[in-house]
Each structure stands twice: as C-alpha cells, then as structure tokens.
C-alpha cells in the first residue's frame, strides 16, 4: 500500500464562522495537509490560529466551507452513516482528559463507549482490556471500575487514548494531548504515542503549541499562522533551521534556542475575522520591521503567499522574502 492510499489528506481546506454583524472569522483559511500512516505530524501555532478548528474539520465535526478532506483517497461525506464509518478509522484525543471523560462513567464504560456506538458486541471486556493495556494501564481489570476522579491526570489521558484505540483506528488526531498534564507525566504519554506509532504503525496528527514536544516525537511539523500553514517540513529542518520569520521567532524565544537572539514579536495574533491583506504575517513580521524585507515589501503588502502544498518530504515556506534571492544570504541557517 502506498503512502497516498492511506493518508489523511486535506486540500485547500477552509472553515469560516459567521459572526454577529455579518463579519466572518476565517478560522482555517486554505490548508493542505497530509498525514501518512505511521507518521507523526505536529501542528504548532499560537492560540487562536485555527489548530483546533482544523482538527475538528479533519474529523468531520466541523463542516469545511471549502476544500476537501479525504481518507484513503476517499473524500469525506457528511451523511451520518459515512461519518460514523469514518470515525472508526480516525480517532480524537482531547487536550483535557478530565473533561474528556464523563465523570459518571467508569473507565470501562468510557473505553467501551466506542464499541457500543459502533455496535461491536463481541468480547467487549476483552477488547477493553486490550485497549487499556496498550495504553499502558496494566493490569487493565484493575481500572475497569474506577471513576475518572479516582485517577491521576496521566492515567486519565491514557484512558482517553485507550478509548480511541479500542476501535483500532488508523489515525489519531490529538489536540494538545499533554498541555494540561504535569511536566513530569507528559513524557510518558508522548512515549506512548511514539510506541503506538512504532509498534502498530498508528499515524497521528498532534496539535501543540510546544515546539519542544514536536522535537520529541514528531516526524514532520507544520507551523500555522492565522488559519494558514506558513512553514512545514521535517522537524529537524524546520526547528533547527527555520526559514519563515514567524517560525524563527517562535523558536528564538525558547530557552537555549538554536536561534541566537530572542525575537519577541510585537502584539498578539489578530482576530481571525480581521486577517490582514497581503502576507498575513506582515504586520508583526520582524523582517519587515527591521527593513530586511524592504526589497520584497511590495509583495508582502500586496500578495498573499500561496497555499503551501503538502508533499511529504520537502521543507516548504510561505514567505516572499524566503523566495527572493536576496533572502538566502541574510537568513542564517
């Protein structure tokens, strides 16, 4: 089976929300993204840049206003039957395991829920036990009757993951899976995701705002800014030699970052309903501010860099400066 066959692919995906007053929030504004089986892709970006919306759209929880989502090469249809079938294959892991578990359901119920929804009746306890142990809760029977509040945060997240694994999906979409967990526990969960990938070829799309996390486990990373992916490529390349000014700023403010001087960007992410024209990053761009981008400034103000493709290998950047020949000299890699 080839990569293309089994990949989750998004092409030109757009999601818009109508706001009161006729304004429109373009939460996802043209995204091409692929997740191949057995691949961990990290999606990083500031709060409000549209990561969650993208994930929800990929799962069919939100309807795209433009573009397509396809799985195994089959475009996603929104009939409830098609969605249900689709959701056996692609599973979601949420940020806050405490919230993701119904406080009134036992661990067993929580994990078996997927089976019940999909009417998989045979050997329910066996499947639940298997999923729990795959998620690292052993011995599983010990946890069957526990309620979420009786578990630690890490255990809860494992239960959530077990609930996803029980349906034997091909892909996990995890929205900030460790953000609400303690620093000391995070590693364990990440190790679990990594192990699932290595042992079972389970691909994942991991949404995070922690670049360190991406460094720890992701094969590829996509950096998102205001509904658009501005840079994507293999983790090593993107994080150690960021080419988009935004990525560089993100990396620079990390302690012990490979980029020498921290670049603290001015202000905050603009509203998704007020995406600046031209390059959407231009108003905050340090290269524009410092005058480095002067040669391509007319492009920056007038021209929206095109949507990045989704090829698996190359390192892609949506920056006019990066593209111009002048740029190469100035950007230290």
């Amino acid at each position, binding site marked *: 089976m080839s990569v293309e066959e089994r990949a989750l692919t998004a092409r030109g995906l757009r999601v818009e929300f109508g706001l009161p*007053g006729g304004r429109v929030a373009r939460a996802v504004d043209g995204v091409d993204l692929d997740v191949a089986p057995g691949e961990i892709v990290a999606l990083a970006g500031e709060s409000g840049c549209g990561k969650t919306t993208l994930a929800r759209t990929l799962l069919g929880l939100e309807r795209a206003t433009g573009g397509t989502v396809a799985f195994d090469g089959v475009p996603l249809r929104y009939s409830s039957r098609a969605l249900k079938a689709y959701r056996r294959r692609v599973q979601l892991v949420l940020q806050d395991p405490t919230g993701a578990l119904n406080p009134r359901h036992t661990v067993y119920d929580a994990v078996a829920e997927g089976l019940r929804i999909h009417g998989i009746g045979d050997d329910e306890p066996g499947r639940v036990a298997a999923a729990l142990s795959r998620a690292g809760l052993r011995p599983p029977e010990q946890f069957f009757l526990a309620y979420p509040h009786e578990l630690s945060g890490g255990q809860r997240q494992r239960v959530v993951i077990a609930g996803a694994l029980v349906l034997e999906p091909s892909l996990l979409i995890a929205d900030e899976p460790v953000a609400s967990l303690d620093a000391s526990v995070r590693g364990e969960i990440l190790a679990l995701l990594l192990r699932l990938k290595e042992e079972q070829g389970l691909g994942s799309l991991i949404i995070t705002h922690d670049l360190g996390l991406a460094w720890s486990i992701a094969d590829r990373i996509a950096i998102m800014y205001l509904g658009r992916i501005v840079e994507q490529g293999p983790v090593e390349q993107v994080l150690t030699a960021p080419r988009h000014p935004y990525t560089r700023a993100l990396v620079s403010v990390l302690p012990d970052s490979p980029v020498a001087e921290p670049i603290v960007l*001015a*202000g*905050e992410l603009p509203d998704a309903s007020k995406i600046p024209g031209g390059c959407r990053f231009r*108003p905050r761009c340090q290269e524009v501010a410092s005058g480095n981008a002067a040669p391509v400034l007319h492009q920056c103000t007038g021209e929206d860099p095109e949507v990045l493709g989704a090829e698996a290998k190359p390192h892609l950047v949506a920056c006019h400066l990066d593209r111009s020949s002048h740029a190469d000299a100035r950007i230290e890699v």
Partner: protein
Amino acid sequence: MTDPLPPADGASTEAPSAGRAARAVERRSSTGFGRYLLKHVSGAAVSLLLVLFSSFFIFRLIAGDPIDQLTKERPVSPEQRAAMRAELGLDRPLWQQFWDYITGTLTMDLGESFQYRRPIFDLIVERLPATLLLSGTGMVLAVLLGFWIGTRSGWKQGSRFDKGQVATGLVLYSAPTFWLGMIVILVFARYLGLFPVNGMRSPSTPPDFWSQAVDIGHHLVLPVLTYTAVVYAGYLMIMRSSILDEIGSDYLTTARAKGLRDDEVRQKHAVPNALLPTVTLVFLALGSVVNGSIVTETVFSWPGLGTLFVNAIFYPDRPVLQALFVLFSSSTIVAVLCAEILYWFIDPRIRRS
C-alpha cells in the same frame, strides 16, 4: 535585550490614528448596543403580543353567558338581555371584538368592566397605588432584608448567624401566605387588637394628610409583615448562594492581598459581583409588584389590583381579567427587558461578543 517593549495594543503596524480607532471602537460598541437592544426589545415585543392574543382568547373560554353573571338571580326579559348584549358589544362578531380589543389596548382604552360598569383604565389607575404601596413596600423590604441577611449569611457560611437565618427564612418561606395572613390577623388584630383587621383606611379618619398617612400606615403593617415574611427568604437564599459562588473567587484573594479589610472586600468586591446575577430577579420582583400580592391583598381585603383580579375571576368579569392579565404579564416582561438593558451597562462582560 535592546528592543523596547512593543506596543501591546495594536496588532497592526500602520495603526490608524488614535482618534479614528476610538471612533471605530465607539461605533462598534454602539451598534453592539443597538443590536443587543433590538434583540431584546423585539423579544419582549413578541412576548407582549403573545400575551395580548392569549389573554383575549383564554378568557373567552370561560364558560357561561356573561349576561347571566350580570343579572345574577334576577329574572331578565329577552329584550333586556339583548340590550345588555349590545351595550357590552357582545353581539359583534368575534373578529371585530378582537380588533376592538387590540386597538383599544394599544390606546389604553381597556374597555368597560362587566362588574363595575366603569372604564377598566380608571379602575386600574384607582387600584394601582394601593397595590404599589403594599406590594412595593413589601417587596423593597423583602429584597433589602433578604439581600442584607443573605450577604452576611453567605459571607460567614456555616456560622451560627448563617444557620439561624437560613432556618428562620426557610420556615417562613414554607408558610402559605394566606394562612400566615389569617394567623397574623387572628393574633395581632383579633386577640391583641393592635392593628385593623382589613382594608386600607378607616372611613372615620380625618381627611388631612397626616391622619390619613398614619391610618394607612397602620393598616399597612400586617399585610406588609405577612408579605415580607414569606417572600424575603427567597432573596436571602439567592443572595446567599450568589455570595457563595463568589466567595472562593481569586479576585477576592487579590483584594485581600492588597490589604483591604474584610468588610471592604465584601462591600467593594464580593457584593457588587454577587449582585449582578440577581439583577434579573430584582427586576422580576419589581415587575411582579403589580401582581405579587394577590393572596396577601385577598387575605387583608386590600383594595388593590390583586383583589380586583380575584373578584373578577369569581364574577367572572372578562374585560377586567383580560386587562389585568395583560398588565400583570407585561409588567414582568417589561421589567425583565429593563434588567437586560441594565445588564449592558452594569455587566461589562455582556458587551464581549
């Protein structure tokens, strides 16, 4: 680190001039208010229309020929019946009666009472002060008392004061108003003879202002006492739980950390915040001032709108019922609308979206 702190405010480098920005903000917020107002006003208008319609049709379902009610136990000739029917406009087609009713209500012409043979508008204007006096005094007392005790009770949850107040409040709250009224009459008016049994004034009182005021005040004590006693506990509980909702909040810790005294923390921070969710309630209470004391008025024969309503029910005096139903309902609807509008100004969080 050499770069100066960035202006955290504007995301855009070519920020519009401050004045323009301010105007833009202004405009946005004013249209925001406009939309908010429109939404709630139109909601209230729909509710009012529903009330208007339903009151016309509901009371038309009352069985029996109104003429029977008008001629209680007197033999009447068919001609007399017809005359009365014509006089009351009952011989007109239903749609026409409906039209008259709608246009009449909108122009404050509420028709004529079957029972009193007087314009209902006059009746209401005559009765309203009595109701406002009783119900308004009672409601204001109840709200103040309830909020005051509720605040202290909640602030010191679990204290002896709290337990005692909650228990007292609950017991009084559990008493049926009419029963409490009868007991109060029995004890204070019949046995002790301290207060008049009923009504709003004694006809023998001299007509000068002070005598009248004292007399009315004297009549007012028992009904207000009864009314307040039953109602205040509701406000106590609400304020108490509202305070309890706030009590663990971080902003109170901040206030305390700033060095404020305990009572300053309560008065300046906890109470204003705790009051916010009760605004609707207070307005609902204000709205129901015109109908809130039906039972109390009946027990004490207080010449207000409540007794008018109960009398009209037993008569049954359909035009009066219609008008009062509209009045009672619309007053709460309008009160809730006012609360919603007020929220815009007092709760900045509303303006967020």
